[in-house]
């Protein structure tokens, strides 16, 4: 059974404007992917593409006015989107753990680090307190915090950015989750510290056989730490596949541009073809979300796009996936 299966997920922001008219921002538009134990999937995309929202939708941490309006999230075969809160909480504490971008704001400033770990273990795993304490020290050790005994007594404000991120990872591991979701786990950390945290993350994934979802805007992180990649644009996953396949032969025009814009591939003189406005979520075009800035767009692109398998396990959401080069029709953005 697939550990995590997300199917056709639609998340909208539904609010009323000054004239009391309903406004809908279609932030996620049919997100689908799945993840198996022991695999690391990287979700990449530009700001506002819907990466964090995807994570929040999966774990049920959406805040109003955001709402899942359609689709399904199955974890070990069980549907999460309509699960009662208490039950979902239990799964979130025991089986799914999340590490978010800003380590400092995710720690309780008034509780010593060790006590936060113990508390979390007590809530979800119960058992004698001494066992929780022992587990806390083990996990602090596992994430490479030197001298766990004395570190456990630290207050959050005494930790550096890298140490706070390690504590959050230790927290995420306390209840041996099967799925770890890390939203920009190294953004804002120094490169040398980022290297430490990513190495750690990878060894933990192997050691505990977790499935891991890494959300990042850094293609370098995906290239070297993930097995699979999902590229998001305008609330849709426009391309998925193994990291090797997608980097070697990107099939979607957006992925091509993204990879072409990395310092490794970027060629001066090409930039004008790249970039453009993100789509207006309040007023999405019918058909492909990329059509206003896609060099290959034709009239066909105004019609609903289906995911096409361009190679085994490699999908792209484009009418011309796999045949962009031979595409004969008249381009609308030429």
């Amino acid at each position, binding site marked *: 059974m697939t550990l995590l299966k997300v199917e056709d997920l639609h998340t909208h922001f539904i609010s009323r404007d000054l004239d009391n008219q309903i406004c809908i921002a279609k932030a996620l538009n049919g997100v689908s992917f799945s993840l198996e134990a022991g695999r690391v999937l990287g979700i990449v995309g*530009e700001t506002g593409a819907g990466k964090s929202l995807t994570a929040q939708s999966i774990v049920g941490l959406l805040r109003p006015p955001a709402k899942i309006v359609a689709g399904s999230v199955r974890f070990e075969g069980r549907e999460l989107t309509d699960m009662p809160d208490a039950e979902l909480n239990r799964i979130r504490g025991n089986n799914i753990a999340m590490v978010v971008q800003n380590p400092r704001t995710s720690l309780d400033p008034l509780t010593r680090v060790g006590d936060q770990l113990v508390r979390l273990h007590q809530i979800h795993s119960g058992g004698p307190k001494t066992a929780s304490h022992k587990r806390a020290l083990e996990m602090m050790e596992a994430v490479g915090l030197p001298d766990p005994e004395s570190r456990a007594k630290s207050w959050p404000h005494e930790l550096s950015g890298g140490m706070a991120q390690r504590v959050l990872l230790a927290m995420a591991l306390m209840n041996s989750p099967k799925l770890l979701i890390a939203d920009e786990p190294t953004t804002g950390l*120094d490169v*040398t*510290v980022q290297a430490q945290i990513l190495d750690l993350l990878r060894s933990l994934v192997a050691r505990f056989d977790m499935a891991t979802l890494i959300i990042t805007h850094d293609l370098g992180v*995906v*290239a070297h730490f993930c097995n699979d990649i999902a590229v998001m644009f305008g609330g849709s996953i426009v391309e998925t596949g193994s990291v090797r396949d997608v980097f070697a032969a990107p099939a979607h025009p957006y992925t091509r541009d993204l990879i072409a814009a990395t310092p490794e591939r970027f060629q*001066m003189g090409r930039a004008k073809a790249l970039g453009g406005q993100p789509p207006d979520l309040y007023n999405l075009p019918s058909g492909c979300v990329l059509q206003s800035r896609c060099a290959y767009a034709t009239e066909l692109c105004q019609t609903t796009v289906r995911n096409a398998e361009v190679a085994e396990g490699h999908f792209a959401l484009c009418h011309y996936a796999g045949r962009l080069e031979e595409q004969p029709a008249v381009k609308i953005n030429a």
Partner: protein
Amino acid sequence: MTQPVLKIRNLSKRFPVGGGRVVHAVNCVDLSIMPGETLGMVGESGSGKSTLGRVILRLLEPSEGSIEFDGQDITQLPKGQIRRLRRDMQMVFQDPWSALNPRMRIRDLIAEPIKLHVDLSRSERDDRTEDLARRVNLGSTYLNRYPANLSGGQLQRACIARAIATDPKLIVLDEPTSSLDLSVRAGILELLAEIREETKAAMLFISHDLGTVRMISDRIAVLYLGEVVEQGQTEALFETPAHPYTQALLSAHLPADPAFKVSRLVLEGEVPSPIALPTGCKFHTRCPVAIARCAREVPQAIQVPSGQQAGCLRIPNGGNIIERKEDV
């Protein structure tokens, strides 16, 4: 022989932070930039990059050392005269949202430096403003808008238009692309490269992103705890980094290409506080090849065979090269 546009000697900046404590943000830096040259400055957060950029422009007062700009010592120049110098030295900041007055239209924002520094009639100024907007690929429809109605990339283009409006000899760019998405970033870098070709302005390009710096810089200076630990030609520094910190920094960079094998040197610990600087070589607390002497002796920059200058005590006997772990 051509004179450098900028020459700084032994420059330091310290911030008193109360309780008698002092942040040593920039320590004894020597650098120069030739006309038309782009010097990339890299370093981790808190290494003093922004502070150094601001001291060079005299937006902050140096604590020690000298700054020579275009042959003139400007270290002690009174504020009034510094204002006039702004015409020749401009700055672009990381965050274009806070760099621009939100109540001014883009047109007026671009015209502002011209108004301040260049004697032009009103219609000449308008023409120049439109030329500049065109030069940075900002459509004329944006000129009548306010900053809030532009994207980050468009705002950064407006900032660049302002920076080049007076044909400066030096532009200091502090993380000009860091807040922008990858595809937008590429466009801005390309624009900067074109502008450099056309105007022959020298640039100090500050960034923590090694890939970006490599693309745009002729030379690179690496900062650690406010000190330049290594500087040299871009390719030499990337191919054969001499200082152990440079080696570690470069190896921590993850190229966006899975086919590129990385062999990593993962440093232990984090950057020490600039309030209590380590003795001797400032890198000795994290250096994988440190020896006892490193805690006592301050290394002097020396030239290595590949041409860079680096400050490490172990260079003479080759002990500065860190052994790599297996490829991952």
